[in-house]
């Protein structure tokens, strides 16, 4: 197609994302963002200036070849764009939706310096969705190495590693503790932000590649890491950070008080929102208060709204600018009528005579001097306590490492938070055992977990070079 001049590129305004109407979507679980039409996507891609320094690529944790895939898309060659994307990013349909782009690729985009960045995330999503519809998934490579690799956990870290290892010709088996795959992608992030068909499709692609997935295996309980090591030539551990943090204020064990993990698991993994009579129940509050300001808090409060709450309220210790949630989620939440109580800290959860939550007691905060993280530290305002009525409260403070797996492995070195220590190749203190994702980083992001999974897969192939497989593949 004809060259577009820089001037012409600069004149194109950033595309809008078609969305479900805010009022309507606040009562259903369908995806908020509807996706770009092809013409809009191509036009948006044409805004990219193909900068020499490629700041966007530096902003992406896995260094997606952004200008290259955008150039193909700008030419209308979606298949070409998809091919470039898939080299760096195993789950682009997911990252395009959930990456905090404003801090990563788009945060560095040159066009964002004077105006609005290229909508890299939306374009990544567009290309990935198109590819899922139009391109056949990879098949297992003909040449198999005979090595067997175990992957523990089927979150984004484990799924990415499994795919890369299978493409390298290893026989891969994924062990997952829950009854379904996807980790946080399935039990945490709600349908309206990441439709579960995307996780299903990715898992299906892995199966096509010959990856075996065994659910209901809790490593550390059903099998130990040591037992797995006896049978497999290498192991990648990506069991996430699945231990919820609580506030440790009085009243936290009242009925109607949930950790975000429990609340979202009931809603997402167990399908409590589907009105299935035999399904798992959830307290559908009329007034729901959620503590926290991250993605987990936004997901919880927006779920509460969709479950029918008249008032779904965020209570956060700092100000709106300090919220760690993706900016798009905060914007969507505001549009959906989520109420924000900023600069408040919980003192107590108050119950009725039957042991149900009836209100939360909050204290106002002021922003003081910046702390070590550079964010201004909230300081309590004396005498500012007040009560906020609610019938459900959700604690969304974040998660830490779950010791179920690691407690059984004294040789596996951990840091003081219980995370597994891994080097830049994702190797742990046990030879042949690699680890990545949230269990190494603490609560992090999808793309970082995927990056670790990819890196670990390469390290594992490297580690296996010159070795003999433990159990030569039995003829099936």
């Amino acid at each position: 197609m004809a060259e577009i001049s820089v001037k012409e590129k600069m004149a194109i305004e950033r595309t809008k994302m078609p969305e479900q109407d805010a009022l309507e979507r606040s009562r259903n679980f369908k995806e908020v963002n509807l996706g770009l039409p092809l013409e809009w996507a191509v036009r948006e891609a044409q805004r990219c200036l193909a900068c020499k320094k490629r700041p966007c690529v530096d902003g992406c944790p896995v260094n997606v070849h952004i200008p290259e895939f955008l150039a193909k898309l700008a030419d209308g060659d979606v298949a070409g764009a998809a091919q470039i994307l898939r080299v760096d990013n195993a789950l682009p349909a997911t990252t395009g939706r959930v990456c905090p782009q404003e801090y990563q690729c788009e945060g560095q985009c040159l066009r964002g310096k004077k105006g609005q960045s290229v909508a890299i995330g939306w374009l990544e999503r567009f290309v990935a969705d198109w590819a899922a519809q139009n391109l056949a998934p990879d098949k297992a490579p003909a040449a198999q190495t005979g090595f067997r690799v175990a992957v523990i956990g089927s979150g984004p870290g484990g799924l990415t590693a499994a795919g890369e290892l299978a493409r390298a010709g290893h026989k891969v088996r994924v062990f997952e503790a829950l009854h379904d795959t996807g980790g946080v992608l399935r039990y945490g992030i709600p349908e309206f932000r990441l439709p579960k068909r995307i996780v299903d499709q990715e898992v299906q692609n892995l199966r096509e590649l010959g990856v075996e997935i065994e659910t209901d295996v809790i490593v550390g309980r059903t099998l130990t890491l040591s037992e797995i090591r006896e049978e497999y030539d290498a192991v990648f551990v990506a069991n996430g950070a699945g231990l919820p943090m609580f506030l440790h204020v009085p009243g936290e064990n009242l009925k109607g008080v949930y950790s975000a993990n429990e609340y979202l698991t009931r809603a997402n993994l167990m399908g409590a929102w589907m009105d299935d009579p035999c399904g798992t129940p959830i307290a559908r509050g009329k007034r729901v208060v959620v503590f926290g300001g991250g993605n987990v808090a936004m997901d919880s409060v927006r779920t509460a709204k969709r479950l029918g709450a008249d008032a779904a309220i965020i209570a956060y210790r700092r100000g709106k600018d300090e919220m760690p949630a993706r900016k798009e989620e905060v914007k969507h939440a505001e549009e959906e009528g989520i109420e924000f109580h900023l600069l408040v800290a919980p003192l107590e959860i108050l119950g009725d005579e039957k042991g149900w939550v009836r209100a939360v007691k909050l204290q106002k905060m002021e922003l003081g001097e910046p702390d070590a993280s550079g964010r201004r530290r909230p300081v309590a305002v004396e005498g500012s306590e007040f009560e906020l009525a609610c019938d459900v409260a959700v604690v969304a403070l974040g998660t830490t490492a779950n010791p179920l797996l690691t407690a059984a492995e004294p040789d596996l070195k951990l840091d003081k938070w219980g995370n597994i220590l891994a080097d830049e190749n994702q190797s742990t203190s046990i030879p042949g055992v690699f680890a990545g994702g949230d269990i190494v980083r603490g609560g992090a992001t999808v793309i970082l977990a995927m990056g670790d999974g990819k890196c670990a897969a390469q390290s594992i192939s490297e580690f296996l070079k010159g070795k003999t497989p433990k159990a030569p593949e039995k003829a099936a």
Partner: protein
Amino acid sequence: MFKVISNEEIAPQLHRMVIEAPRIAKARKPGQFAIVRLKPGAERIPLTIADDDPEAGTITLIIQAVGYSTKEIVATQPGEFIQNIAGPLGKPTDIEVWGKVVCVGGGAGTAVLFPLAKGLAQAGNELTTIIGGRSEKYVILFDELSAFSKQTIATTEDGSLGEKGFVTGPLKRLLDDPATKPDAVYAVGPVPMMRAVSDMTRPYGVKTIVSLNPIMIDGTGMCGGCRVTVGGKVQFACVDGPEFDGHDVDYAELAARQNAYQELDEHGCRLDAALA
């Protein structure tokens, strides 16, 4: 998918099911449980692993059909499948050699008690077992428990079998007689029973261990839904328990939390009234 090998009704609404689950059969120790999900869309519910046969690759569950999920599970016929069974979960029982031990089981709790009692007996403890039920047909596993107990006592509320009354009757006698005073008591059953037993043994200073049964989802420490307060500290029953020192448990909180989903509708209405 986990194949049901056999399914027999051993008391009204109480089923013993043997199920193929080779990995769990191999790993399981007394005191541990599994999370069972019958089919897509069904709830995940915790059930104690009553017994295992690692050779045959099977586990035994003893299930009281009290509500939706348990009724559906016990309706599964031999040859049919259970979609998901994950385990073994929870800390295994700390099988200590105490000397004289009294094991107290109430209702379906007797099923949870059975593997503990067996483990304690195998370790060389001298067991007196007290099991209670509403009437004769609800007293379960009497013969099985008698096989390794020095003495087995049944109590029924209507006197149709054994002693009329509650399990605490014979327990009090055993505590009061220096010749039979136990070195430890294990109690598993409905919350009011575990509470009554703990209250009774406290003044005697007899170590009392109970197995708690809060509502659970994952059973791996991920959701925190199973939290209980023990000795003023919040514990997750699925990973820190399910067994705890009976003298330290906040039973009122446990009982309240267990009933949460029965009371849901009422709860919403009360808030309306409060805000009106």
